[in-house]
C-alpha cells in the first residue's frame, strides 16, 4: 500500500505534465483522445470485466450522447443544458438497452446489444431530418467554463483529464463498494447470488446504467473533441475498437482498459499515417490476440517476450537451466 502512493503521485504528475512533454498541439489532442477513449473503455469494462456481460452495442450509446449534445446545441441550448440533455438521453437510452438486453445473458445478450447498436447506427444514418444523415452534425464551439476556454488544446486536455480522473475514481469506488462485490458475485455465481437473496437482474441493470453513464460522458467529451459527429462513430467497428481496448488491456482491472485505450488510439493514429487499411489491421490484431495471446495483450506480450528471448539466446538459458 505504501508503495502505491508515490507511484500514484508520479502518474498524476506525468499526466499533468503531458502538454509540456509532448511536442505540439497535435500530440496534446491525441492525449485528450486517449483519455476520452479511456473513459469509454472504463464504462464498457464495468459490464465486460465486472458483470461478465459482453456488449457490442456501446458505440450506439456513445453516439446517442454525442448526437444529443450536438442536436441540443444546434437547437439553441447552452452548453450546460446540452450536456444535461445528453446525459439524460443517454441514461434513458441505456435503460431501454439494458431492459431488453438483460432478458438474456451470454451470447444472446451480446447478439441483442449488437442488434440494438446497429439499429441506433441505422437511425443515425437514415433519420436525416434529425441526424443529417451521412453529413453529420457539426458543433460550433467548445464551452468555456469559468472563463477557461477549451478551444486551446492544452485547456481541453486538462478538462478531459479532470473528467477522466473523476471517472476513474468513481469506477474505483464503484468496484470496491459492496455493490461492486455483489456485481462480481453475479458474474461468477449468478445462481448462488440469487439463492443468497440478491436481485441479480437489478444488480446487472444498475451496472449497465453506470456503464452507460460513463459511455455518455465519453460521448459528450468526444463530440466536443472532434466538434463533429457522424454515423461512422456508431458503427460496429467502433464498438469493436472499444471492446479491443478493454480486452487487450485485460478485463476486470481498472488500469487495463486505460492501457488498452492508449494502445489502440496510438496504433490507430500511427497506422493511419502509413497505411489506409486500419480495419484490416484491427481485424488481424483481433485474430492474433485470440490465437497467440488468449490471456490478454499485456500478459500475453510479456509471455511472448520471454519466449522470444529464450529463442534468441538458447545456449545461455539452456546452459543455465539445463535440459527441460
Amino acid at each position, binding site marked *: 500500500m505504501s508503495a502505491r502512493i508515490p507511484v500514484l503521485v508520479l502518474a498524476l504528475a506525468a499526466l499533468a505534465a503531458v502538454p509540456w512533454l509532448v511536442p505540439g498541439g497535435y500530440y496534446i489532442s491525441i492525449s485528450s483522445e486517449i483519455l476520452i477513449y479511456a473513459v469509454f473503455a472504463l464504462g464498457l469494462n464495468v459490464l465486460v470485466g465486472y458483470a461478465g456481460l459482453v456488449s457490442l452495442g456501446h458505440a450506439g450509446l456513445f453516439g446517442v450522447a454525442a448526437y444529443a449534445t450536438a442536436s441540443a446545441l444546434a437547437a439553441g441550448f447552452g452548453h450546460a443544458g446540452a450536456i444535461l440533455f445528453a446525459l439524460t438521453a443517454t441514461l434513458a437510452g441505456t435503460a431501454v438497452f439494458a431492459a*431488453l438486453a438483460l432478458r438474456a445473458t451470454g451470447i*444472446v445478450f*451480446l447478439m441483442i446489444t449488437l442488434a440494438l447498436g446497429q439499429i441506433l447506427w441505422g*437511425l443515425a444514418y437514415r*433519420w*436525416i431530418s434529425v441526424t443529417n444523415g451521412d453529413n453529420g452534425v457539426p458543433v460550433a464551439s467548445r464551452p468555456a467554463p469559468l472563463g477557461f476556454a477549451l478551444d486551446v488544446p492544452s485547456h481541453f486536455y486538462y478538462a478531459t483529464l479532470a473528467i477522466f480522473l473523476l471517472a476513474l475514481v468513481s469506477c474505483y469506488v464503484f468496484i470496491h463498494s459492496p455493490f461492486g462485490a455483489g456485481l462480481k458475485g453475479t458474474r461468477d455465481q449468478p445462481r448462488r447470488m440469487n439463492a443468497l437473496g440478491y436481485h441479480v437482474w437489478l444488480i446487472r441493470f444498475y451496472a449497465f446504467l453506470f456503464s452507460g453513464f460513463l459511455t455518455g460522458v465519453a460521448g459528450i467529451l468526444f463530440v466536443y473533441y472532434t466538434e463533429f459527429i457522424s454515423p461512422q462513430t456508431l458503427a460496429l467497428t467502433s464498438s469493436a475498437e472499444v471492446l479491443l481496448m478493454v480486452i487487450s488491456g485485460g478485463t476486470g482491472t481498472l488500469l487495463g482498459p486505460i492501457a488498452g485505450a492508449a494502445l489502440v488510439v496510438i496504433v490507430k493514429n500511427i497506422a493511419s499515417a502509413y497505411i489506409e487499411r486500419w480495419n484490416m489491421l*484491427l481485424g*488481424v490484431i*483481433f485474430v492474433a490476440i485470440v490465437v497467440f495471446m488468449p490471456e490478454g495483450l499485456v500478459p500475453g506480450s510479456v509471455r511472448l517476450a520471454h519466449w522470444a528471448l529464450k529463442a534468441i539466446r538458447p545456449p545461455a538459458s539452456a546452459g543455465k537451466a539445463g535440459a527441460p
Partner: protein
Amino acid sequence: MSLWGILAVNSVTFGGLLFLLSAGFSLIFGLMRIPNLTHGSMFMLGGYVGSSLYLTYHLPFWLAALAAAAVVAAFGGVIERLLLRRLAGSTLAQVLVTLGISLIVADFCLMIWTGDPISVATPPALAGGTRAFGIFFTTYRIAVILVACVVSALLWALLDKTRLGAMIRAGVDDPQMARVVGIRVSRLFTIVFCLGAGLAGFGGIIGAPILSVYPGLDSDMLPLALVVVILGGAGSLLGSLLGSFIIGFVYNFGQALVPELAYFVLFLPMVLVLVLRPQGLFGRQAP
C-alpha cells in the same frame, strides 16, 4: 392497392433472402453456440464472388451462384477448422475472432472490388414479369421466392429425414450425450459451418440483382440475421423461416412508409418478442 401488393411481394422476396442468411446463422448458433459475426461477411463475399463469376467470367447465373456458395462454404470451413476449432467453449474468443475476420473480409472486399456498388443485372431468362391480380410480378423475385422455398424444404428434409440431420439435432440438443453415443460432433460442426456459410453466400449472390453488392452490405445484413434469430429462436429452422418473413415484411413496409426510420421499426418485433418470449418464438428455454 397495387402498391401494397408490390410491397407484399417484395417483402416475401426479402424474407426468402433473409431465410437463406439466417437459417445457417441459427443452425451454427444452435449447434455450436458460436455467435458467428462473419455471417454478414459471408453474404457479402458470396455476392462479390458470384457477381465476378457472372459478370467478368460470364458463367451462367445459377452456376455462378452455386460456385460462389461453394467458395464461401470452403472459406467457412477453413475458418472453422483453423480458428474456431481451437476456441471451443470460449465465447469471448469466438466473438473476437469472428469479428476480426469480418473486419478483414470487409477490407479485403474493399481492396479487390473497390468501393463502388456492383449492380448485377437480372439473368436474361428471368427478366420481365407477369401481371396477375392487378399486380406486376417480376419473374426474378418469384424465382427467388421459389428458390427459398426449395432450400427450406431441402433443409427441413436434411434435418428431419436423414441420418445426418438426426445427428445434428442430437448435437443441438445435447452435445455431450451425442458424443457419448458415438457421434463425431466436431465433424458435424465443420459440416454445419460450411453449410451455413454456403447458404449465406448463396443468398448474397441470389440477392445481388435485388440489393446489389456494395461495401457495408455485411453490416447491413448481420443485424437483420441477428434480429431474425432473436425473433425465431436459435437453432430452430421453423423459427428462422417465420422470423425471416416477419422481418421481411416489417423492413419493407417500414422502408416504404417511414423511410427514415426503416431500421428502427425492426426494433418493434424484437422488443415484443424479448418482452413476451425471450427465448424466441420457437426457441427453447436456455439450460
